[in-house]
Structures are given as C-alpha cells and as structure tokens.
C-alpha cells in the first residue's frame, strides 16, 4: 500500500508551479493573517477574542506545506542516474525540482510559524 503510494507520487509531475507551491501557501497565510488582524482592529476596534479562524488557517497552511514537503521528499529520491545528480536527464531534473521544493517547504514552514508566534503574545490592538 505504502509502496504503491510512493510509486504513484514518484510519477507526479514537478514543475515551476509545484516548486513555488509551499512559499505561495506561506504568502497566502501571511496575507490572511495581516488582513485578519488589521481589518478586525480597524473595523471592530478590538482583537479577535476567539481567534479560531487564525489558528485553523495556520494549521491548514502547515499541513499543506508538510504535504508538499513529503511529496517532494519522495520525488527527490526517485532512483536513477549516479550522484551527484546534476546531469541532463529527466530523473535528475525531477530530483532537482523536488529537492528545491523540499527546501522551500522547510523555509515556508518556518515562515508560517514565525508569522503565528506574535498572535500567541499579543492580544490587543494597541
């Protein structure tokens, strides 16, 4: 079952769009956080007392980023040509895009956590 899933994932297409999927999720989460806080402060004059929306979005963003990372990790290990995997072959191109996606997923994961931390500490609109 797992093997079949791994095989399936390894055949997925990696493109420039999948490369930027994790940072796009970071960007969407960042924008949402900013709008959530500033619109509530401006229109309601008060911080959200129950920020379930924010935490829901944060968890969702992290889950999506981890998902991208896992897929990228599996794809970056597609067996193929010899190390250092920098040849002009389809496998090496896939491994490169997947590995870069994995790195970007790591960065985006940290980025989302960085964005979320202030909400733990700040609770009003001053």
């Amino acid at each position, binding site marked *: 079952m797992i093997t079949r899933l791994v095989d399936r994932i390894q055949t997925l297409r990696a493109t420039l769009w999948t490369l930027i999927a994790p940072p796009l999720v970071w960007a969407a989460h960042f924008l949402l956080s900013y709008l959530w*806080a500033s619109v509530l402060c401006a229109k309601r004059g008060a911080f959200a007392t129950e920020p379930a929306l924010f935490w829901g979005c944060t968890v969702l963003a992290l889950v999506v980023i981890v998902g991208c990372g896992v897929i990228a990790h599996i794809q970056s290990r597609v067996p193929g040509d010899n190390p250092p995997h920098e040849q002009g072959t389809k496998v090496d191109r896939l491994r490169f895009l997947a*590995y870069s996606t994995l790195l970007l997923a790591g960065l985006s994961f940290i980025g989302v956590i960085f964005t979320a931390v202030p909400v733990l500490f700040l609770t009003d609109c001053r």
Partner: protein
Amino acid sequence: MSLHAQDDPALREAQEARLRAAWQRPTGWLTRWTDTNNNRVGVWYVLTAFAFMLFAGVLALIMRTQLAVPDNDLVGASTFNQLFTLHGSAMMFLFAVPMFEAVSIVLLPQLLGARDLPFPRLSAFGYWSFLIGGVFVLGSIFFDAAPDGGWFMYPPLTTRTDLSGLGADIWMLGLSFIEVSSVAAAVELIVGVLKCRPPGMRLNLMPLYAWYILVVAVMILFAFPPLIAGDILFEMERLLGWPFFDAAKGGDPLLWQHLFWIFGHPEVYIIFLPSIALFAMLIPTFSQRHLLGYPYIVLAAVGTAFLSFGLWVHHMFATGLPKISLAFFSAASQAVVIPTGIQIFAFIATLAAGRVIFSTPLLYATGSLAIFVIGGLTGVMVAVVPFDWQAHDTYFVVAHLHYVLIGGTLMPLFAGLYYYWPLVTGKKLSDRLGRTAFWLLMAGANLTFFPMHLSGLMGMPRRVFTYPEELGLAGLNLASTAGAYLFAVGVLVIVIDLALSPTRAKVKRNPWNAGTLEWLALPEDEDWGIRSVPLIETRYPIWDQPNFVRKVDEGRFFLPDAEEGRRETIVTSVLDARPVAVIRLGTPSWLPILAAITVGGVFILTTYHLYWAALGSGILALGVILRWLWTTAEIPEKPCKPIGHGLELPLYVAGPAAPGWWAVFITMLADATAFSGLLFGYYFFWTVHSDFPPPSAGPAPTWPIAALALTAASWGATIIAREVHRRGRVGLTRVLLALGAALSLASIAAGLAGPWQAQLDPATNTYAAIVWTLAIWTVVHSAVAAIAQLYGLARSLAGRTTPSHDADVRNITLYQHFMLFTAVLTWLTLGLFPEVA
C-alpha cells in the same frame, strides 16, 4: 545537414558569411542608433546607468561636503533637499535597477547560447525610455526644479502644490516612465530564460545567473505595478485635486506609504539578487569547481523573492499601526535572514572546497560579502520593532542601507565589471589599478558609513542640511566626509582603469578559464551571438563536455547557418528545453526610438500641464506602437526549416508555445497587479473610515452591472471568434471581432454612466475620487480591448492572420481574460459593495 557536412571549411565560411550578413550592424552616423542587437543596446544601457551613477555620486559628495563641519553654509536647505532626494532616486531608479537589466541584456543571450533575446526591439525601447526619462529627471537639478521630498516622496508634503513644486511631478512622471521600461525589461528577461534556452538545458542545468534573473524579473512584475498605481493616485491628487492622501477630505497619507513600500522593499532584493547572481558565476570560476548546493541557491533566490513581499511595513514601524501588524512584518523580516544566509554559506563552502585563484574580481566579491554581512546584521537589528523606534529616521538607518547597497549591489557590480570586461571588450582591466581601487573603496566605505551608526545612535536625524556644534557630532561627520572622498577616489581609479582599456592588448578567449556558455564569446566581436546553438548536457559545458568549444565554433550544433538571411534563434520548452520552433528576431529599426520618444512625450508634457500636447503625443505613440506590432508574428515563407542533426522546426508558433503569447501574459500580469494596487486603495479606505462608502452616494448597481455584462459579452464573442477561426470560418471570425469591439466600446459608455449619473464629484471627497479612478482604469482597458479586436480584424483582412497562423487572435483572447478579471472586480465593487457594506 549531417555532422559530416560541417567538416568542409568552405561550407563553414559560407555559413559564417551569411550569418555575418544577417547580423550586420547599421553603421551610418545616425542609423547606428537604430541597432537592436543585445551586444550594442546592452552596452549603451550599462554605460548610461554607470554615468547616472557617477552623477548621483557627485550629488552625495556635495552633501558630505556640506555636512563636514557644523553650521556649514555651502548649500542651503532647499538645495540640500534636492540633493538627497535626487541622490536616492537616481541610485535606485537610474542606476541599480537599470544596471541589472543592462547587464542581463548583455549576458543573458550569451549564457543561454541564444543569438539574442526574443524581443530585441523591446530591449531597445526600454533603453531609449530609460535614457529619456533619466536625463529628464536628473536634468531638473540644473533648473533648481529637482524633486525635494525624499526618495519615497511622502504626502502630504509632496502632494500639496504649495509645499512642493514641479519637482514632485518630475519625480512621479519621469520615474513612472522608467518603471514602464523596467516592466518591459522584465517581460524580455522572463521569456528569454523560460523559452530561449539552448536544447538540453533543462531547469537543473540552467546557469544560476539565469535562475536569479528569472526570479528577479518576476519580482519586478509584482513590485513595480503597485508603485505605478500609487503614482497614478498621486498625480491625480497633484494635477486634478482628487484627494487620495488628503486627510481633510477623507484621504489617508498612509495609503501612499503602503503602495510605495510594497514596491520599495522588494526593490532592495530586486537590486541585491542580480548582483549576488554575478557571484554565482565568478565563484565557481575562481574555485575551479562546480558551485556547491545548486538547489540551495535556488531555494535562496525563490525564498527571498517571496519573503521580500512580506517586509514592506518594516519601513512603517513608526506610523502607529497596530502592534500585531508590525509583529507580522517583523517576523517575516527575521525569516528573510535564513535564505540570505544560506546562499552566502554556499559561496563560502564552494571557495573552501575549491582551489582558489585570488583574482581581482574575487577580491571584490569577498570584500563585498564582508560589507554586506555588516549591513545585514544591522538589518536584523532594525527589524526588531522597539529598536527601530529608536533608530528610525536617524543616520543609523543611513549607515545600514548603505552597507547593504554598497556590499550587496555596488561592489558586486564592480566584481562583475572586472570579471566580464574581457567578455565585452576582449581586454582585461588592470589588476594593479583594480586592487588599489578595491582597498580605497573598502576603506572609504567603512570610514564613511561606520561612524554614521554612532552619529545615528547619538541622535543625528537623516536629511538635515546642517547641525549645531553643541551636539558633539562634528568629529564623526568629518570622518564620514573624509571617507566619502576616499571612496570617490576609488571610483575615480576604476574610471581611469576603464579609460585606459582601449590602449591595452586583447587577451585570449575565456581568459579566466570559466566553464559556462557566455565565455564562448570571441575577443574579435562577432555580432551573431553564438556560432551554433549547442546541445547542453552539463552545468559547466566548457569544462565538462568534450570538444565543446570546437564543436560550437565549427557549427556542429544547431542552427549553424542563416540560409534566408534572417536573424533567428531557437525556442525551447520550459522544463526540459526541448526544441520547439525557430523564431525570426526583430532587426534594427526606428520604431523603438520613436515609441520611446512619443510615450515619453506623454509623461513629460503632462508634467508641464500641457495636456493637449500630451494627448497628441499619446495618439502618435499609439500609432507607432501599432505600426511596430504590425511587423510582428509574420507568416513565414515556408512552414519549417532544418536546424541540423535531422531536426526540422516550425517557423511559426502560436499560443503558449510562442514567446509573443508569454509576453502578453506577463505584461497583463503586471497590469493586473497595478489594478490590484488601485483596488487595494478602495478597500483600504473602507477599513480606515466607518462611513465608506458613504450611505446612498451611488452609483446604483444598474450601470456597473450593465458594463460588466457588456464586457463579458465582448469576452465571449472573442473566445467564439478564436474557436470558429480555428475551424476555418474566417468571415464569421471577422464579424465576431467587430461585434466584440462594438461591445467593448459600449461597455465604456455604460461604465462611465454609473459615477456620472450618481453625480460623484471626485475633487470633493475620496470615495468619489477612487470610484472614478477605478471606473476610468477599467474603461481605458476596454478601449484597448476594442483597439485589439479591431487590430485582429485588420490583420485578418490583410491576410496576416489566418486559421493556421492565428497568434494574433490567440493573444487578443488572452488579453480578454485579463480584461474580464478587471471588469468583474471593478464593476462588482462599484455596483454592489456599497449595498453590502
């Protein structure tokens, strides 16, 4: 043509003669300026940007002289305001950004083994726009009319015509014009990297320079348009009195700060990444090994690009926004350290793992990293909100930004200058002069800017034209001034080195023994770019592919000939660089210059309130651009041509396979971003006012919804036109395109009827002003849609668009998709949001 055929020297010579003829440069004393070849236009571009840099540097020296001693009276406050405004604006808009575009225009085709970039005439247009706009803006200081509101032009100081004169208009309109040329360059570079790579250069084999340029060009698409949107609002306020930033009439000066810094912060990375990209090329050369951590560099470039859009509010920490908003931006500002650090470590690791040749370019590279790291660390300090409140608007910030820009942009460019000079001229620069200059620059930069940290912490504010002796800042300021002169001497040594270059002998080809494609260039300048377009199998083909240089030179790869006497290059697929087509490139022409002059006329004449003349210039510009377009997407004399090795490629492609389609897509992406900036304005006012939109101010939903329906119908007609055209029903296509144009024109009337009938007076309040602005933006796009549809009709009638050659119709459809996106958001916002809110 088999491999075998290239063994014949006579054949090779005949091919070379044909290539030389096709790429013959115009030589008349006037016509030579019509050249479009990247090796000429790029060099003009570099020299012009360099000259503007020297000019802006002189302005800085005057400022430092004024500040050398307390209570100095060399220049007055008003002149000083013009000096620092013009220094900052020129260094950013007329040096750093254009220099990156210029260097890329020179290098990119070489790096990608292409004969030229896909739109040579567009590069020429960008250059001429830059020259005209730059001279216009810089020249203003000789008439005591230079902008004086600081390089970020904060309203209300700059929007009130009684507080700031013509200078503000010169800044807004002159630099808007240059922003347009930057977007043009971005289009050129993105399409170049994605579609004009040599066969076999898959994404994982792309030179890192190309990765950086791709990333930076995409950043331009999202960073510059918000500023263009801001410029539009700004000029509407200055010229027509529409109150976007005037708090008394419901505006908000903070809106400008948002729009400016959404541009302004990514801008820092837009100029930093391409300079770092030069390191990614020269560090492997001088380590004589592959760069370590290729995917990590890609991570750094892409990661920095994204994060840099989450930093803009860190320039606004002192504006009183809620702390929670500040904290988000502070967090992102801290996060951007990660990718920046990673790439620096990748460079250091490469040097550590290789056999280092400590050449002059490498000296500059390592020295600039040291300076940059200091600037980066003070950047982390000012990213912390409470610290920023202390340091805000003091010389500490001046010190920080100069360390970043000198270490992250200027010194790397000097590294690139010493590294790539042999590529452009065939001659090396002097090592002795270069090293002397380096140490002068290094000492000068630190002596100028390190004391500014201290004077800033001691409370010296930015932008004061003098300071009293009692503050105890005299010693630090004098040191800064001495440093500035030392730095200037360093720059002078470099200029002397450049000036001596013509007297020196040529060096051998590839003098640094580099491994990447650009070093195929011959010391004896050939205009054809590359003798034959190679098949790429490794990242460093000159090092790793056997007999590579000889095979390229003997035309044993692709497209070794110009049988039809045309300028051509190969288009490949995005991911794997599979050959897709051969495209014919633009030849020398007056059209780009005329387009730059007429478009420039619109901006410059508007500055002086000569609206009718500006309108005339605009109509001329439209005519020139349509004439220029008419020459594109020509139907070739035969469907395919052989490019060697048994490969035969089409000479005409349409839709997503064609560079033209991508150019429309990318331009419209930038256009959509500018529109989002205006729309952001609308909703920004909604958040800051409790009565926005004002109750029952209108417009009623009827007219906006009608405008939307008409635009949607025009969109539908165009899509059906594309489909029936493909099936060969040319007559029906023409009817549908004409119908689409009529619907577009009708949507203009309907769109303007809404705010008109509601009697919204844009000069009285912000709501009316932003409604009119959105409506006008959208109907202008409808007008362009109508022109495009009629153009398609004319092309069909002239036989330049046929069912098998339908690039025009496809591009018009693509425009219509963006048109519909704009119309949906505008008309729903204007028509329905007042009801919802």
